[in-house]
């Protein structure tokens, strides 16, 4: 699984950061979310899905088919 935050949609609610703070980081300037490493380990997938489901703007984009290299 791969994940990213569409920064044109993100409004900075920060809920994804509460679900998985080490995956979804917050920009120092304006608190909007970003993903540093888009590859998600299999055991972390459920956290990422929870974060995506909880995003009020649906800004979290998941590519489920793409496995880690």
């Amino acid at each position, binding site marked *: 699984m791969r994940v990213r935050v569409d920064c*044109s949609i993100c*409004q*900075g*609610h*920060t809920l994804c*950061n*509460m679900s998985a703070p080490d995956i979804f980081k*917050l920009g120092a300037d*304006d*608190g909007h979310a970003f993903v540093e490493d888009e590859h998600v380990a299999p055991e972390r997938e459920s956290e990422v899905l929870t974060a995506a489901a909880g995003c*009020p703007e649906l800004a979290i984009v998941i590519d489920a088919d793409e496995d880690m290299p």
Partner: protein
Amino acid sequence: LPASVTIDFLGLDHNDLRLFADPFHKATWAPAGSSEWQEAVDGFAKIPQVLMRTIEARRHEPRDDYVSQLVSMRIDGRLLSDDELIKVLVQLLAGGIDSTAALLSCVFVYLDEHPEARQPLIDDAQLLQRATEEFVRYFTPIQAIARSATEDVEVAGERIARREPVLLSMASMNRDQAVFDCPDEVRLDRCPNRHVGFGLGIHRCLGSNLARAMFQTTLVQVLRRVSDVRVSGAVPYGVRSTINGWNTIPASFTPGPRVTTSSRRA
């Protein structure tokens, strides 16, 4: 209207609407020491016991509302105390009751001065969405918010010690020339528009999407119904307020046909 929606959403008693709304409205504009200010202070003192009635009732018989969720949720395995529940609910009331109403008031006054903008906002859904963000940016209903520094920091050469209070001006940030082209101009179709009108970080506005929906629905319904509305003698909130809004907006208009909905509240 925003007060009514907030009270519905939280699950509080509609009969208490004025009891909740009046202190918050008065506190936004009444000068300290005035009789209205004293009424707001007295009103705030009554709110906790009224909230406790609903809290107790939902503990015994939960409903599909926010209070029921709050009384049953656990943080680190424990339920919230009465004191914590009241603080959370008062915070949500404060956020819901005045800010969207303040934005609506600013925009009604703006549209009185710019009547040519009315019809495009009714006709063009995308313009309405972009204009909503632009109005939140330009008017910034919550102008500033108080915070305490969690650690020693230096910002633009200014040292701020841990626990020192700071007042963050969203109004100023939303007019930042480095971010916004011609920041002192209202551009209804401004895009992108990364304003900070709803705050930043983990305490960012919880109700921003509810606020947008309330604002857009109210604005379009009013503009459709009373297309010739004219404002005269509007009174702004006083200078001490951190809320940017109008206290009263006397308006005259020709009533349009009555519009009813299936779920009209008495």
